[in-house]
């Protein structure tokens, strides 16, 4: 993201990850994705006019679910291209929580009759209260939290049926494996596993995806992407893609995770988040944890 330059040789500098702050490492409370669901039909991501739906914003934080307050709004998305999306009219719905709570921010709404694209926007605060929206133009610069911090500004563009019919992709319960072994969701990894030694070595985190989630749109399959995050160790990359031309069926992706070199005697819980997207607003989330134990135990 440096200044524009005109050299093909710049390509030679590609591939170097962000040295400032690895995106895939969760060091603070932050949003990692969002999902829209039609009420009663959670697989549908795009509501039709008059249908009830809900958008939930997924958060991640070191150590697990964070406490947050928030304010979210839903409006008709404006037609501006290229910049931060905004509203063409005052918000239709507001959802606000002024007390800190671990429940994920969410906004329920009834899809309007005359709109093809909606915008969810707002602020998630780790402390204090989200500022009110006095006028639509307050978004996004003037939005923040009462403790003086800008907070986590979030936006999510949402298509509507029938212009766009889209199904949320799904990460099934048995989709993940750790070093080749099934990796299921558990609440006490240092009690029931899985565990890995803190040797600084690498583990392989694999996800088996569903071929059915590669919907065909205008003759082309959707591009699936998986973003991975952890609160310890180092993931070799943030994202993996399944391209439309990828022949593998069912598709799969994997991440290399470099384990920390030390762990407390009783072990340390390391958390992982995997966000699956279909490139058209559909998404799913899987969370996993493992126990990092001292080498040799």
């Amino acid at each position, binding site marked *: 993201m440096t200044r524009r330059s005109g050299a093909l040789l710049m390509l030679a500098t590609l591939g170097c990850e962000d040295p*400032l702050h690895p995106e895939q490492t969760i060091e603070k409370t932050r949003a990692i994705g969002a999902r829209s669901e039609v009420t009663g039909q959670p697989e549908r991501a795009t509501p039709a006019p008059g249908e009830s739906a809900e958008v939930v914003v997924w958060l991640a934080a070191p150590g697990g679910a964070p406490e947050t307050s928030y304010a979210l709004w839903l409006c008709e998305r404006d037609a501006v291209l290229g910049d931060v999306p905004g509203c063409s009219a005052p918000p239709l719905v507001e959802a606000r929580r002024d007390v800190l709570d671990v429940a994920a921010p969410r906004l329920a709404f009834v899809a309007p009759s005359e709109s093809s694209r909606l915008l969810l926007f707002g602020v998630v605060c780790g402390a204090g209260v989200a500022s009110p929206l006095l006028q639509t133009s307050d978004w996004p610069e003037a939005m923040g939290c009462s403790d003086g911090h800008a907070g986590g500004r979030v936006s999510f563009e949402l298509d509507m049926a029938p212009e766009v019919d889209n199904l949320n992709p799904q990460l099934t319960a048995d989709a993940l494996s750790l070093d080749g072994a099934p990796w299921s969701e558990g609440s006490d990894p240092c009690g029931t596993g899985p565990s890995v030694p803190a040797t600084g070595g690498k583990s392989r985190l694999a996800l088996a995806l569903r071929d059915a989630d590669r919907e065909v749109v205008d003759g082309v399959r959707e591009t699936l992407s998986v973003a991975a995050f952890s609160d310890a160790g180092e993931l070799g990359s943030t994202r993996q893609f399944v391209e439309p031309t990828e022949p593998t069926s069912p598709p799969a992706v994997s991440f290399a995770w470099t384990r920390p070199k030390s762990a407390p005697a009783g072990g340390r819980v390391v958390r992982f988040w995997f966000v699956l997207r279909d490139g058209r607003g559909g998404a799913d989330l899987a969370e996993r944890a493992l126990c990092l134990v001292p080498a040799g135990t």
Partner: protein
Amino acid sequence: MRALGWSMLILMIPVAVRAEVDADPELVESDDELVYGEEAVVEAPPREAKKRTLRREELTEVAGTRGDAMRAIELLPGVGRPSDGDGTPILRGAASFHSLVLIDGMTVPLLYHFGSLTSVVSSRLFESVDVYPSNFGARYGRMSGGVVEANLRRPAMDGLHGMVDVSLIDSAALVEGPVARDTSVAVAARRSNIDVYFDAFAPDDAYGVIAAPVYWDYQAVVERELSRTHSLRAVVFGSRDRIELRLARPLASDPELRGDAGGRIEFHNLALSSRGRRADGGGHRLLLGASRQLFEQKAGPNTAGEFKSWELTLRGEVTEPASRELTLVTGVDAKATFLDGSYRGTRPRQLEGDPLLEVPNALGPRVEVADTLTQVAPGAYLELGWSASRAVRIVPALRLDAYFPSRQLSVDPRLTTRFALDDSTALGAGVGLYSQAPQYYEIIDVIGNPKLEPERSLHASLGVERRFSDDLSVELEGFAKRMTHRVVTSADGNAPYFVNDGDGRVIGAELGITARPTADTRAQLAYTLSRSERRDRNGPWRRFDSDQTHNVVAALHQRLGAGFSAGARLRVVSGNPSTPVLGSVYDARVGLYRPLYGAVGSEEDPLFFQLDVMVQKAWQLGAARLTAYLDLQNATNAENAQGRAYSYDYSRSEPVRGLPILPNLGLRGEL
């Protein structure tokens, strides 16, 4: 990394979309009796308010340029410091795409291999490089900034000569000599050496190398003297740059950049010219040119472009002295471009002053277009040279240009005056209108606006030159520009996508000092003070992307004896404006943060400081000459921050340092 994707597209856009022919002012306008012959140099009355020329002996000995003649123009007043990776000149506050670069009358789609490594024509073939920083004459049109014209020399007639040059960067060879009593030929070629060691430095966990970066270029010049007053010349030159990589993983800052990435830029130019001159100062110049240009780009699965074009150029100019005081120059100028291309990627935006160009591709609106485009641009001009007295010369001119298919017409009157105060001091002034057609993609319907009008610019300048002795000359000049009808992105980014709602203003002054205190010493100092601003869609005035308030360049070249020579160049330049990032918004649909920008160009990079040093030693071995050289760019390894790199959420940033110390060691043999 949208910047990369877009900049690569920019590389596909011809740097200058027109070709012209020079008329030799030394030969077509002199009031004095011409003395023809190889040694004859007759200073003619100028046709432009300011023309600065670097001659052959100055072109290849400038430290920090690796002997590159086109980089040597950065020594001159009014020439800004280009960004690393984008070496196209910035003339008096004009964007590089507003200035015309000609090589022997032909435009080229790129001036430097891989953006800035070395120019695409062997500097050993240049006779001179002329720089018109603004207020250029009517023979140049359809461009609103300035003009750089590199003139190839006549191949040697005095016997067979050759040159071989091998360095870390590239290897080159040149052969020239007479092939008949009145005909001589020069052939040159060059190929990069980078691919030999590229793999060793490539981070193999980041990408695999499908095709290491390679460039090559070639030139051939044939010149036949039909008579002492009439010559024919054929020039063929071309170039290719290519690199292909396979990224090991998606780029963290822009996951659209994944998989295969690379590109190819290739062109082949042919120019046939005829030049005639008479003893009475009259003469003609005719050029027929054809250019084939090929561009390919791939930056991940969703960003790709392929363009192929033919460009045909015709220009003729006739100079007729009406009397001892009056000279009439008439010229016609036509260019036709036939473009066939396709592009898919983020929607193009204005090339300058738009921080959204830096937003990751994954967050930009996308577009896919495949189209053919034929552009025809006939032009004509009339120029009157009037020597009102021995001290005063006035050159009024008028240029007309038509643009198709947009069916636009521009009428550009220009006036240049020169007043000699005495034998060594002269005042010069100029004022004129300049017009430039929009970039070709800006008028394509799906991504642009076919109804765009030409951009306009009013230039004015006033200067004084004084030659204190044969060894010392000083020039001081003030200049100003006012731009209107600048093409900018539409307010909401929607159709018509581009509009003529931008304007601009430039004001500045230049000081140039050239000294030759001894026969073995050459020194130059250039200082430019300027302010270049733009305004988009009636918004607030802002600084031009490459506005450099202070620009000081000092150069020294010294022959030391025993075949040794050394040179140094020092540049101290104000940092370029930058746009602060005030915060960000997480786009949960894509999974990336969007930056929230502050006022465009409201911050400034740190001062740029660079010292370059060059040392060479030559041995005369009979008829052959062997030279070893070391060119050390950024000898003090100054950091020279240029812009900032941001963390994924824009909460942290650090300066992006410029090129580190860069040595180039080489050996050159000449016969």
